[in-house]
C-alpha cells in the first residue's frame, strides 16, 4: 500500500487489519454496502481510498453514482461548501439504505437536518440555547439518576443482561424524554416505542412503522398539552419563543429523538466492549472522545448532493451528483490521527468528525459526551466484575443499518 500522506512516524503497536481479497472487477468503482460480515470496521479498503487521487466513484444499491470522500481534509471541505446541499429532495441525493422509521421531509415539516442555510438556521438558532455546554452540564445530576435507576433494575434482575436492550438504548431515550418534558409516568411508553423503532432484528417493518406513528401521535399530544399548561421544559420554551411554528415542532422533536437515540446507544455499547478489551482505560474520561472517533458509528449519516458544479480534492463533482463523506474514513486518516486503528484515549482525538462538521455538526454532541461519560463511569463503578458473555468476535454487528453498532451485547457479572 502506498502512502501519500506524511510518513508514519512510528511503528504502530497494533497492526492495521487487512481486507480479504476483493472480487470487484473494476477497482475504480466501489460497490455498496461498505460494511460487510467478515470485514472489520472501518473497512480496511478505506485506507486504499484515502491514498487514491481525487475522490472514489461508487454505485449505491439503487444504481445511482456517488462520490466517496475519505480524507479528513476533504470531508471537512465537503461539509462546509455552500454549493453542496443536505436536502434529500434534490435529484441525486444519496439513498444508502435502511433508515429506520425516519420520516420523509415532505411528511414532517421541521426536519431541519435536511435543510440548507438560511432555512435550516432558524431551527438551529432556536435550539442552540437548549444544548449549550453550560445547560448540558446542569443536566448531569438528572442523567446520573437515570443511569443509576437502570443499573438498580439490571442488578435486581440477576447476574446477566443484554447491555444494548437493558442499558444502552434506554439511557438516551429516558434522557431525551426528560429534556422534552415527557411526564415520568409516560417515559416507559416513550422508551418502549423508540426501542422498537431502532431494533432491526427484534421488530418487523410494520411494527416499526406503527411505533413511529404512535410516537408522532404522542408528540403531537405533548405539544398541545404544553400549549395549554407550559412547564420548565424544552417544548414549552420553544412554544414561548415562537421561532418554530407548532406544526413544525413535531418534526423537530422527532428529529431530536431519532438523531440522539441509536447513535448514542451504539456508542455506549461499542464503548463498553472496547473498554472491556482495553481495561487500562476504564476509569479514564478521555475514553469518550476516543470512542467517538474510533467507532465513528455515523459513517453513513452526513449525506450530501452537489447543487452546482464543485471541485473537491481536484475532482469535479457535477450538479446533481451525490456525495457520501465517510466520517469513519476521515477519523482513521493517518495524516491526522497517528496509528488510527489503535484505541488510545491519550491522543488528541477532538478534531474527529464523528459529529459531522459545518452548520449541521451535531447539536446534541455535548449532551452525548455527558451521557457516555456517566454511562461508562457508573457501569464500571457498580459492576466492577463485568464480563462479556460471548466471544468478542461473536458479537452481532449491524451490517444492514445506516449506523454501525451492535444488535445485542450479552454480559455477566
Amino acid at each position, binding site marked *: 500500500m502506498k502512502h501519500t500522506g506524511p510518513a508514519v512516524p512510528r511503528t504502530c503497536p497494533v497492526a492495521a487489519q487487512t481486507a480479504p481479497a476483493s472480487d470487484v472487477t473494476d477497482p475504480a468503482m466501489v460497490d455498496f454496502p461498505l460494511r460487510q460480515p467478515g470485514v472489520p470496521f472501518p473497512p480496511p479498503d478505506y485506507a486504499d481510498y484515502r491514498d487514491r487521487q481525487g475522490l472514489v466513484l461508487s454505485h449505491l444499491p439503487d444504481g445511482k453514482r456517488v462520490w466517496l470522500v475519505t480524507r479528513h481534509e476533504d470531508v471537512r471541505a465537503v461539509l462546509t461548501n455552500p454549493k453542496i446541499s443536505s436536502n434529500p429532495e434534490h435529484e441525486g441525493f444519496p439513498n444508502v439504505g435502511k433508515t429506520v422509521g425516519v420520516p420523509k421531509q415532505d411528511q414532517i415539516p421541521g426536519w431541519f437536518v435536511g435543510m440548507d442555510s438560511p432555512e435550516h438556521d432558524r431551527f438551529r438558532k432556536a435550539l442552540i440555547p437548549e444544548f449549550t455546554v453550560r445547560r448540558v452540564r446542569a443536566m448531569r445530576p438528572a442523567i446520573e439518576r437515570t443511569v443509576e435507576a437502570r443499573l438498580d433494575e439490571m442488578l435486581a434482575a440477576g447476574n446477566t443482561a443484554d447491555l444494548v436492550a437493558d442499558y444502552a438504548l434506554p439511557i438516551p431515550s429516558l434522557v431525551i424524554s426528560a429534556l422534552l418534558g415527557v411526564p415520568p409516568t409516560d417515559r416507559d411508553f416513550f422508551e418502549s416505542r423508540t426501542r422498537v423503532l431502532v431494533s432491526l432484528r427484534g421488530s418487523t417493518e410494520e411494527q416499526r412503522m406503527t411505533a413511529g406513528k404512535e410516537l408522532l401521535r404522542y408528540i403531537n399530544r405533548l405539544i398541545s398539552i404544553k400549549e395549554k399548561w407550559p412547564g420548565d421544559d424544552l417544548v414549552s420554551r420553544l412554544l414561548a419563543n415562537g421561532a418554530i411554528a407548532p406544526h413544525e415542532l413535531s418534526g423537530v422533536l422527532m428529529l431530536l429523538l431519532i438523531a440522539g437515540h441509536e447513535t448514542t446507544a451504539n456508542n455506549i455499547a461499542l464503548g463498553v466492549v472496547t473498554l472491556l478489551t482495553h481495561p487500562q482505560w476504564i476509569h479514564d474520561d478521555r475514553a469518550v472522545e476516543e470512542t467517538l472517533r474510533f467507532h465513528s458509528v455515523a459513517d453513513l449519516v452526513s449525506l450530501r448532493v452537489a447543487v452546482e458544479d464543485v471541485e473537491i480534492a481536484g475532482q469535479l463533482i457535477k450538479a446533481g451528483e451525490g456525495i457520501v463523506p465517510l466520517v469513519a474514513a476521515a477519523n482513521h486518516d493517518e495524516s491526522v490521527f497517528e496509528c488510527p486503528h489503535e484505541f488510545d484515549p491519550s491522543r488528541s482525538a477532538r478534531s474527529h468528525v464523528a459529529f459531522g462538521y*459545518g452548520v449541521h455538526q451535531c447539536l446534541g454532541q455535548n449532551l452525548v459526551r455527558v451521557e457516555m461519560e456517566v454511562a461508562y463511569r457508573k457501569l464500571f463503578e457498580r459492576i466492577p466484575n463485568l464480563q462479556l458473555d460471548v466471544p468478542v468476535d461473536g458479537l452481532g454487528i449491524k451490517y444492514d443499518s445506516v449506523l454501525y453498532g451492535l444488535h445485542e451485547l450479552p454480559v455477566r457479572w
Partner: protein
Amino acid sequence: MRITVAPDRCVGAGQCVLNAPALFDQDDDGLVTLLADPGADQESAARVASGLCPSRAITVHEG
C-alpha cells in the same frame, strides 16, 4: 495575538467553550462570546478552538 468572533456564523456547537473555557463562552442565545484576548499561555488553545469551530466563527490574528 488577537481573536475575533462572529456570533452570526456560530452554530453553538460549543467546541470553543469545551477546549478554551478561559477565552470563550456561550451567551444566553448559545452563541459565542469572547471573554478575553489570549495571554501568551493561551495562544495555542486559541488556535485549537479556531481550528475546531465547525462554522469558522473564530478568527485568530497572529502577531
